[in-house]
């Protein structure tokens, strides 16, 4: 993702000529399976969005269900819970987004300073490991960990503190949801960032050392600016998920007592679609989510280009 890369991409934007197409047709053929899969699994299902405007009956299908215009949207937006749910979603997602950049960044910078190879390797693997665990398993573990008879409360009791019902308290629950998700997922971004650090030209550091810059100065003036493109990339991509607060995780961990603080759009849609079988409204919320994400991604992408002259794609 360095400067040369993006300039080449820009050059090709004029559209490939017949000559280059002939020369590169093999590459295009190799691209084909990916394109087909995307068409089938990403574009195909978009036809289902028509449900958002229908009073959808599964067995009548898309063709015979009644069209109701924007009724589904009105219905959902007028539901009393919707505002709370939207707020929860944005709050949880934004905090997660920020932490997903911040925590791995700090970890990557720290690891970069570690000189013992084996130690940094070990930490990398250890941090990355929870990423592969499924929430189905981890959710249960976390509920047990934070239950009244769990080890966390045991620790509190040993310190002479009062037990806390973490999973039944709206504020605590939100914290645990955010904390555990960041803990589980931080390894991924950390690896990406470490790779970015490795990509920084080593001569820059040598020059800095000659100029008398210490480790700290080097980090501020070389490592961080060198990582800027990847940080922007990660940031922009995660913005698309601003309304994704972590469906699986919350579905597994929540309970009626914390609906108030942890019911998010996805769990809301899930209950609407799966238990009330109101597919139309559920699809409407899904579409609403996608439109917001699309707008946000487009805006940040454009802004990154306009003000930083930086392009991702």
């Amino acid at each position, binding site marked *: 993702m360095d400067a040369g890369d993006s300039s080449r991409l820009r050059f090709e934007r004029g559209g490939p000529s017949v000559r280059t197409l002939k020369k590169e047709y093999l590459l295009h053929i190799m691209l084909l399976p990916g394109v087909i899969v995307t068409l089938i699994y990403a574009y195909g299902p978009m*036809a289902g969005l028509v449900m958002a405007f229908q009073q959808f009956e*599964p067995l009548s299908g898309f063709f015979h269900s009644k069209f109701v215009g924007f009724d589904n949207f009105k219905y959902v937006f007028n539901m*009393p819970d919707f505002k709370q749910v939207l707020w929860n979603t944005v709050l949880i997602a934004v905090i997660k987004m920020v932490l997903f950049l911040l925590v791995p960044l700090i970890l990557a910078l720290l690891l970069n300073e570690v000189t013992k190879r084996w130690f940094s390797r070990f930490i990398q693997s250890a941090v990355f490991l929870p990423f592969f665990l499924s929430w189905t398993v981890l959710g249960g573990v976390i*509920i047990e960990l934070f239950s009244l008879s769990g080890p966390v409360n045991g620790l509190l009791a040993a310190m002479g503190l009062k037990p806390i019902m973490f999973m039944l308290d709206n504020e605590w629950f939100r914290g645990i949801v955010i904390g555990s998700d960041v803990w589980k997922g931080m390894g991924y*971004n950390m690896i990406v960032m470490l790779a970015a650090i490795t990509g920084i030209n080593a001569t820059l550091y040598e020059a800095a050392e000659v100029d008398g810059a210490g480790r700290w100065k080097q980090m501020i003036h070389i490592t961080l600016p060198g990582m800027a493109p990847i940080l922007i990339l990660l940031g922009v991509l995660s913005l698309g998920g601003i309304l*994704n607060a972590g469906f699986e995780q919350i579905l597994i961990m929540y309970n009626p007592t914390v609906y108030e603080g942890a019911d998010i759009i996805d769990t809301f849609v899930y*209950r609407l679609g*799966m238990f009330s079988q109101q597919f139309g409204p559920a699809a409407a919320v899904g579409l609403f989510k996608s439109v917001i994400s699309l707008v946000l991604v487009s805006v940040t992408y454009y802004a990154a280009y306009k003000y930083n002259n930086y392009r991702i794609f």
Partner: protein
Amino acid sequence: MNMKKINPWKMILLVTMSLSLFTACSSQGKDTAGPAADPSSKEEKKSTDAPPEPLGKYPETVTVTEVLGYNPPEDPRTPKGITPDQNAYLKDLKDMLNIEVKYKWTVPSSQFEQKFSLAMASADLPDIMELDQKNFEKLKKQGMLADLTEAYNDYASPELKKYMESDGGFAMKTFTEDGKLLAIPAFEDPFLSTQLLWLRKDWLENLKLEPPKTMEELDKVAQAFVKNDPDQNGQNDTYGVSLQKNLFFWAYDLRGFFNGFGAYPSIGDNQSAWIKDSSGKLIPGLIQPEVKTALGKLQSWYKDGILDKEFALKDENKAVEDITAGKVGIVYGEWWYPNYPLNLNVDKDPKAEWIAIQIPGLDGPGKSLVPKIRSGKVYAVNKKMKNPEAAIKMINFYIEKGKKKYMEQNKAENGYVYNWFNPRIYNPAQIETIYTEVNKALDAKQTEITLDDENYKNVADVFKATQDYLAGNTANASKGVNWGQYFSRAAKDGGWGMTRQIKESGAFVNNEFFGLPTETQVEKGAQLDKLMQESFTKIIMGGSLDEFDKFVQSWKSLGGDQITQEVNDWYSKQAAK
């Protein structure tokens, strides 16, 4: 990784829907998603020359698809590791009728509702379906259900017909539309729903307490069960009343507790109850002031540690664990508890002894809510199925298997798991038959029961367990298992025994609404349910009791008033009939 989080359920939904769209566009007899696609069932030709026989064997194998949500086998003697496919009932079905059951999928019961919703959403339905009323209503509206009138008239065995007519054909009429019978309802004696209070008698004796008759006395007992070490193990490890996160569930819930306050919020499974007010109209029990009083009591119980502090995190399995482990000594519920899970506790702790009493009320024993009809499940057939009569024959088969001649073989240890087999229709008067027949045999000091019809197995099983229990014989089954059979079905002061007494004394209130769920109930039900769960749980855990008044307002404006109207419309139509 925050950038590509895919919502898996929505994904599945979308993919299956788009797939069904594609197949709908391109299907030319190659209907891969359709349930009737099984070639063997298509090739089957209906033999028109032979007269219909309820238990006639098909000349060629008929394959029937089903789906199943299942619990572990109830009987501990069942071979370990058995799966629904290996159920001995299915083998017999193949031998006797040449019907082969194929499960499209099987999941633990707790996931069934979700999974079935998905199947409905993708129109991927099996041939024979076990439906609740809500799903029945949906599939009916979409014209997915086969007309069973002919199949029933031609093929139903005399026993099945007897059962169906035992209520004057009332339940069947409920599931008939425009003269077409769309489902076979599995209805039972409504008093099976009567709420009782189950108590650890040995704990009462340890603490020199009497079984409680009033709420006040129950309060004292529950307090003592928390504080006074009822199991006398020197540890503070017990609590009062069993509860899991669903306040109105099918077990380990609080229906009976609310009934004790003259409050009738629900008939279980989160469905509202409807009672008659003084003007003869139906009113929702859920929003009456008595409910508030009861919630107030629960709040103080929660504070005193009578309820588990983390009940809102517990599912039914956790509740059962606590009962089995002897951590809790009071639980509200129906007649069948001794059969499960109390038997587990009895086996674990030889000192454990349970009794059933009428629910304590405000002054003297309270009145339990009892439905007008009890028909949770119905069996319906997919319209695409080629042999709808196979469903009727399978019901005949299940009833037939209860006869004496199959007794030797039809045992749990041989891999017969009755509650995995569908479609399954019981004798609506089964429990009463068992109770009277077993007691008759006991009183006459018989060693064998005299009855010889399709009820034989059910009666003989209980009689045998009863004899074993009374003689202290544990050669065939553990003490808990024998006791469970005896105390749930045959004991005069046991589950059904107490229920009968309540029935006779008239100490019950009827749930007056027994129609199919109304339009608004189907549409808004889940939302109202969430509102109730959230508000009530919060109040119990120490929220302001005035939240209840807010809840009532929201409930009414979010569709509750509309539902009340619809229910009353139904009621006046019913009265006119």
